[in-house]
C-alpha cells in the first residue's frame, strides 16, 4: 500500500512540477511563497519573527493556502481530463488512490512550508545572526511544525472531499474558495464588531494561555482531520465516481 501511495505521489509531483505551467501551482507558486515567507516577512519582522506567537499563526495559515491551490485538481482534474476511469480500472486499491491524492496535497503544502521555514531561519541568521545561531524557541518551533502539518491535512481532507464530488476543477475551486472565506469569516468580522465587544474579544484572546490553546487547537484539528479522512474514505466509491463522469 505504501508503494502504491508513493506511486500516486510520484505521478502527482510529475504533473505538478515537471509539466504544468502557469501561476496556479508548481514551481512558480512555490517560489513566490518561499520568497514571501522565507525572505520578505522575516526581513521585515527582524528577530521577533522567531519568537512572536503570531508567527505560529502565519506558518499555520501558509499550508492551507498552498494545499488549496492544488487539491481541487486531485479528482475533479482527473475527471475533467478523462483519466479517472483508467486509474480506477487499474490494480490500485481505493485506499491507495485516496491516500496517494491526500498525501500528495499534504506533501506539497507542508513541504513548501518547511522549505520556507528553513529559508526564514537562514534569512534571520544572515540579517541578524552576528555570529550567533538564532533559532525558534522550542515550543514555538514545535507548534509551527505540528499545526502546519495538521492544517495541511485539514485543507487536503476538505479539498479531496470537494474534488471527489465536483464535476470540474473550476467548480471544486469555487466551492473551496467559499469554504476558505467561511473559515476566515471570524477574523474578517472582528473589525466590524461594536467597539465594546471587539475590546472584550481581543482581551479574551490576549489572556489565553498560548501553550494550552495550541494543545487544544492541535487536538481539535487532529480529531477533525481523522473525521475528514473517514468521510473521504466513505465518499470514495468507484461506481459513483465512474457514473458521475
Amino acid at each position, binding site marked *: 500500500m505504501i*508503494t*502504491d501511495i508513493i*506511486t500516486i505521489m*510520484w*505521478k502527482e509531483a*510529475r*504533473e505538478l512540477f*515537471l*509539466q*504544468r505551467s502557469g501561476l496556479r501551482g508548481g514551481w512558480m507558486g512555490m517560489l513566490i511563497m518561499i520568497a514571501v515567507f522565507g525572505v520578505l516577512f522575516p526581513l521585515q519582522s527582524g528577530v521577533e519573527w522567531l519568537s512572536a506567537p503570531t508567527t505560529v499563526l502565519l506558518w499555520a495559515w501558509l499550508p492551507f493556502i498552498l494545499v488549496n491551490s492544488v487539491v481541487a485538481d486531485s479528482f475533479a482534474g482527473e475527471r475533467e*481530463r*478523462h*483519466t479517472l*476511469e*483508467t*486509474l*480506477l*480500472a*487499474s*490494480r*490500485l*486499491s481505493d485506499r491507495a488512490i485516496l491516500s496517494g491524492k491526500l498525501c500528495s496535497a499534504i506533501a506539497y503544502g507542508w513541504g513548501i512550508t518547511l522549505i520556507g521555514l528553513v529559508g526564514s531561519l537562514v534569512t534571520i541568521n544572515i540579517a541578524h545572526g552576528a555570529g550567533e545561531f538564532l533559532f525558534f524557541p522550542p515550543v514555538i518551533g514545535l507548534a509551527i511544525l505540528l499545526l502546519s502539518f495538521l492544517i495541511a491535512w485539514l485543507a487536503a481532507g476538505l479539498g479531496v472531499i470537494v474534488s471527489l464530488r465536483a464535476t470540474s476543477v473550476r467548480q471544486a475551486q469555487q466551492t473551496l474558495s467559499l469554504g476558505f472565506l467561511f473559515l476566515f469569516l471570524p477574523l474578517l468580522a472582528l473589525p466590524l464588531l461594536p467597539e465594546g465587544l471587539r475590546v472584550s474579544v481581543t482581551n479574551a484572546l490576549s489572556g489565553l494561555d498560548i501553550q494550552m490553546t495550541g494543545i487544544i487547537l492541535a487536538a481539535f484539528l487532529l480529531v477533525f482531520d481523522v473525521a475528514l479522512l473517514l468521510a473521504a474514505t466513505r465518499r470514495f466509491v*468507484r*461506481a459513483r465516481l*465512474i*457514473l458521475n463522469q
Partner: protein
Amino acid sequence: MEPYAIKTHGLSRDFGSVRALDNLSIEVSTGSVFGFLGPNGAGKTTTIRLLLGLLEPSSGNSEVLGFDTQSQADEIRYRSGALLEHNGLYERLNAVNNLEFYGRVWRIPANDRQTRIRELLTNLDLWERRKEPVANWSRGMKQKLAMARALLHRPALLFLDEPTAGLDPSAAARLRDDLESLVEQEGVTVFLNTHNLAEAERLCQQIGIIRGGKLVANGAPNELRARAGNPQLEITGKGFSPEAIQELRSRPEVLSAELHNNKLTLQLREAVESAPLVSWLVGSGAQIEEVIKAQSSLEDVFLSLVNEDEQYLEGGS
C-alpha cells in the same frame, strides 16, 4: 488455465428506469478475440465496466479469469488491461512518464519496466517522440500509446472500448494492424467493443451482437454469416431465356432467380456447388462472362439482426 476468460450469466444493469444491459449470458474462450458489436448506447461500455468490477450488476453474475466480478474485482483488475472510452493518458506528461507511472502501478521491476517501455514504444513507432508531452500528439498516436499502456504489464485479458473510434481511416487501419500483431505476440484474450464491422470481421474469432442492452446474436463470424441469409450466385452474361430462368426457379436448390441488366441473381437454398448450375445455363444457350459466389458480410448480418429487433420492438409496442 480456465477454458473461458469471461463467463456471464443473466447479467443485467439498470440505471433508474432504464435497463442498460438485459440478461447477458456469454462465454469468451481464453486466448480468443471477442468482438462485442452494437450501435452507440447498446450497452457495450456498461458491460466492460461490469466485467472490470467498476459497476455492480442489478442482477445476474459474471466471472472473469475465474474471479467473481463482485467479490474479487481487485484480482480481475490486477490481471487485466484496459483501453476505455477515453484514452486515459496524462497529457501533460510525456509518453515515457505515462508508461512509467502505470508500470509502477503494476509494480513492474525498474529494469523490466524500462525494457518493456522501450519494446512497446518501438513496436508502435512511438520511440522517437517519447519525450514530447502527449498533448502535442495526434489522436492516432495517443490511441497507440494507450494500447501500449494497457499491454504494459502483460495482462491475461485486454478490454478495448472502441479503440479506433474517431480516428481517420488510415490511422484506424494502422492501429488495427498494430493491434493484430500485438495480440498475436502477447497471446492475450481480447474483449473488443466496436461498432466497426470491418474491424470485428478482421480481428475477432467470436462475435456478440448487442442492441438495446440485449444480446441478439453470438457466435463465430462464419456462423453468423450463415445465419444471416442464404448463399447467392451472381451470374453476368447474355442469352438468359425466360424459359431457362423459369426452369431454374423450379430446381430444388434454387430459392429464387431474378434477371436485371444481364445479371442473373440466384438465391440458393444452401451452399451448393455452382458448377452444375453454370454448365446447365451454358447448355440452355446462355453466354457466361462472370460468376460470383456472394457471401453475406458481417454488415448484412448486423443490419438484418438490428432490423429484426427493431421490427420486433415496433410490433411489440
